[in-house]
C-alpha cells in the first residue's frame, strides 16, 4: 500500500496531492532558508495567520457577485492581499513604534486571525451553502483537490522558486550582514519586503495542502534541518529544498496510504523526523558528533595525565585512566608500565618540559597561546626549534619506576 503510494499508483487525487506537496515542500524549504538565516523565522507565523481574513472576504465578495465562493484563484488572491496588509502592519509596528519584532508578530497574528474567525462566523450565518471548504484552509484539505488546483499550486511554487533564484544573492547578503548590504548601496528594507513577499507567496500557495497553521512548519523546519549539515549558505538552500520536497512527497504518500491520516500534519511530522535525525546524526553540529568529540577529548586528557603520572612515578587510581592506558599497551594489568609505556611516558614528560620552556619564553608567545595540555609540540614547532629547546633543557633523565 505504501509502496503504491510512493510510486504514485494510488489514483488520480493521491498523485496530484503528492506532486503538489513535493513542489510546495521544495519552494517552502528554499524560501524559508532566507527567513531562517535572517533570524526572522516566526514572521512566517504572522503572515500565515494573516491570510484568514482575506480568504473569508474573498469568499464573501465572490458570493456577493454570484460566483462560486470556492474559486481557488479568488480565495488565494484575497489571502495574498490580507497577508500583505498584515505584513505591512507588522513592519510599521516594528519600524515606527517601540515594539520589538516578536510583539509585532504576535499582535498581527492574533488580531488578523481573530478578525478572520469573526468573518468565518459571519459567513456561517450568511446562509450560503458550501462554505465548508473554508475551514479546510485552517488545516488544509487535500481531499477532492482538482487538476486546476494542482496546476495553480505547481505554477505558484515554480514562480516563487524562480524569483528566489533571481534575487538570492542580495537576499543572502542582507540575511548575513544587513549593515554591509546597506553600505554596498542595497535597499535593505525593500529586499526584506521582497523576502517576506516570497514567503507570503509560498504561504498562499500552501494553504490548500497544509493549511495556514502548519505552513509555518514547512518554512521553518527544513532550513533548520539543512543548517546542521553544512556551513555554506548555497548548500543550505539546496539541502533545505531537498528536505522540504522529500518531506512533502513522503508525507503525501503516507497520508494517502491509510485512512484518517490528514496530509498537512503528516508532512509536518515527516519533516520533523528529518530534523530529529539531523539533530542527532549530523557531522560536527549533531548531538552524536558532539558526544563522540567529548569522549575522544576525555580519553586524550586521561591518557595524557596517566602518562605524566607514570613518568613521575605516581600511582594511578582512576579506573578509566588505567583502562585506557592498558588498552593502549602502556601499562600491565597491575598498573606497572611496560617498556613501550615507559618510553611514551618519558616523551610525555619531556614534551611537558618543552612546553614549559616555550611558555616562559617571550619569543614564543604566539606558540604558547596554543598550549592546552594536550597538543603535541611537534605540531606547532619545527624540528630545529625543538632541538634548540632540548639543548636548553639538557640531556634525557632517567624515569623513575
Amino acid at each position, binding site marked *: 500500500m505504501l509502496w503504491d503510494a510512493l510510486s504514485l499508483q494510488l489514483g488520480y487525487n493521491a498523485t496530484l496531492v503528492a506532486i503538489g506537496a513535493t513542489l510546495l515542500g521544495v519552494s517552502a524549504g528554499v524560501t524559508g532558508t532566507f527567513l*531562517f538565516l535572517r*533570524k*526572522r*523565522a*516566526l514572521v*512566517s*507565523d504572522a503572515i500565515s495567520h494573516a491570510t484568514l481574513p482575506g480568504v473569508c472576504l474573498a469568499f464573501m465578495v465572490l458570493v456577493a457577485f454570484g460566483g462560486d465562493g470556492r474559486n481557488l484563484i479568488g480565495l488565494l488572491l484575497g489571502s495574498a492581499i490580507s497577508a500583505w496588509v498584515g505584513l505591512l502592519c507588522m513592519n510599521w*509596528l516594528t519600524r*515606527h*513604534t*517601540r*515594539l*520589538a519584532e*516578536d*510583539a509585532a*508578530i*504576535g*499582535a498581527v*497574528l*492574533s*488580531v*488578523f*486571525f*481573530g*478578525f*478572520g*474567525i*469573526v*468573518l*468565518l*462566523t*459571519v459567513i456561517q*450565518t450568511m446562509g450560503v451553502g458550501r462554505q465548508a471548504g473554508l*475551514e479546510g484552509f*485552517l*488545516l488544509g484539505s487535500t481531499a477532492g483537490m482538482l487538476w486546476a488546483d494542482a496546476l495553480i499550486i505547481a505554477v505558484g511554487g515554480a514562480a516563487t522558486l524562480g524569483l528566489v533564484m533571481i534575487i538570492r544573492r542580495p537576499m543572502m547578503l542582507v540575511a548575513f550582514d544587513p549593515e554591509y548590504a546597506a553600505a554596498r548601496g542595497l535597499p535593505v528594507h525593500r529586499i526584506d519586503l521582497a523576502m517576506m513577499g516570497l514567503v507570503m507567496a509560498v504561504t498562499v500557495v500552501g494553504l490548500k495542502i497544509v493549511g495556514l*497553521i*502548519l505552513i*509555518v*512548519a514547512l518554512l*521553518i*523546519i527544513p*532550513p*533548520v534541518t539543512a*543548517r*546542521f549539515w553544512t556551513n555554506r549558505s548555497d548548500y543550505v538552500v539546496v539541502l533545505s529544498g531537498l528536505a522540504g520536497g522529500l518531506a512533502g512527497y513522503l508525507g503525501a504518500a503516507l497520508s494517502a496510504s491509510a485512512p*484518517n*491520516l*490528514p496530509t*498537512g*500534519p*503528516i508532512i*509536518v*511530522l515527516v519533516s*520533523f523526523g528529518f*530534523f530529529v535525525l539531523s*539533530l542527532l546524526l549530523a557531522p560536527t*553540529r549533531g*548531538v552524536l558528533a*558532539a558526544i563522540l568529540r567529548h569522549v575522544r577529548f576525555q580519553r586524550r586528557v586521561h591518557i595524557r595525565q596517566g602518562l605524566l603520572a607514570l613518568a613521575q612515578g605516581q600511582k594511578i587510581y582512576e579506573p578509566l585512566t588505567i583502562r585506557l592506558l592498558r588498552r593502549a599497551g602502556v601499562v600491565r594489568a597491575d598498573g606497572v608500565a611496560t617498556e613501550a609505556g615507559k618510553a611514551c611516558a618519558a616523551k610525555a614528560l619531556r614534551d611537558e618540559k618543552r612546553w614549559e620552556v616555550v611558555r616562559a619564553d617571550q619569543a614564543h608567545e604566539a606558540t604558547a597561546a596554543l598550549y592546552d595540555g594536550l597538543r603535541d609540540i611537534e605540531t606547532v614547532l619545527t624540528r630545529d626549534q625543538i632541538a634548540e629547546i632540548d639543548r636548553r633543557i639538557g640531556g634525557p633523565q632517567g624515569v623513575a619506576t
Partner: protein
Amino acid sequence: MSGEEFVPLSLTPLLIGTFAAIACALPGNFLLLRKQALIGDAISHVVLPGIVVAFLLTGAISTWPMMLGAAGAAIVAVVMIEAIRRLGQIEPGAAMGVVFTTMFAAGVLLLEQSDTSAVHLDVEHALYGNLESLIWLDATGWASLLDVQALTGLPPELPRIALTLIGVSLFIWLLWRPLKISTFDEGFARTIGIRTGALGMGLVIMAAIAAVAAFDAVGSIIVIAMFICPPAAARMMTNRLETQIAWSVLFAIVSAVSGYVLAGYGPLWIGGADAVSAAGMIATVSGVILAVAAAFGPCRTRAGTPGPA
C-alpha cells in the same frame, strides 16, 4: 436589557472573558518586556496535543485531566524548545517554530486518528473557544447572585478562571521586585542574588497556567491576543511599569467587554440576524486598541519621550 435576561445569558460569559483577558494580560506585560511575547503563541498551539492525549488516556471529556494534559504539553514544549536551542545551537525563534508546529501537527493527527467524532472536541473549538455557551441557566435575575442554590449552577469555568486570575495576581504581587528588576536588568538582578533562571521559568509556567485555564474557557485565539495586544498598547502609553500594567488591565477589560457586546449585539444593530464569534471579536477589538495606541500613544516611539523634550 433587564436583569432576567442579562444575568443568565450574558453575565457569566462577560465575567469569564474579562477574567481570562486580565489573567493573560498580566504576565503578558513581563513577557513583552523580556522579548518572549511569542511564548503565549507557542503555548496555545501545544495545548491541543496535551488535551487530546489526556482525552485518549481517560476516555472522557473531563476538565481536570485535560487541564493537566495541557499543562504537561506546555511544559514538554518549553523543555523541548530549550533542548533544541542548546543542543542544535539554533536561534530561539526557529526552535520555537519547530516545536510548536510539530506538536500541533501531532495533536491534529491524534484527533483525526482517534474516535472523537462523538464528543465535542475538535480543532475549531480549540481555536475559537466557546464563550457564548457558558451560560448560567439557574439564574433568574440579579437576585440569583445571592441565592446559594443558583450559585451552584454557575458554569465551572468561572470559579476556575477566577482562581487562576487570583493566582497570577498573587505571583506577580509577591515577586514584584525581583520580577521587575530581572526584567529590566538581568545582570544586575543576578548580582544582588536573584535567581533569574528560576524566576524566568516561573514566569513562563505562570503564563502557561493562565493560558491553559483561559484556553479551557475561551479558546486559544483570545489567549494569544490577550498576552500581546493589551500589554503592547499599554507600552505605548507610559514608561512606568506600574502604570503600564494598570493600562494593560484596563485595555484587557475594555477589549473583553466591548468585544463580547459587539459580537453579541453588533450584528443585530446593523440588521444581521445572528451573533458572530465573541472570541474573534475580542481579539479584533484588542487589535483596534493597539492600533489606536500605536498611532497616538504618548510613548509610542522608541526613545519613549512624550513629544519634543
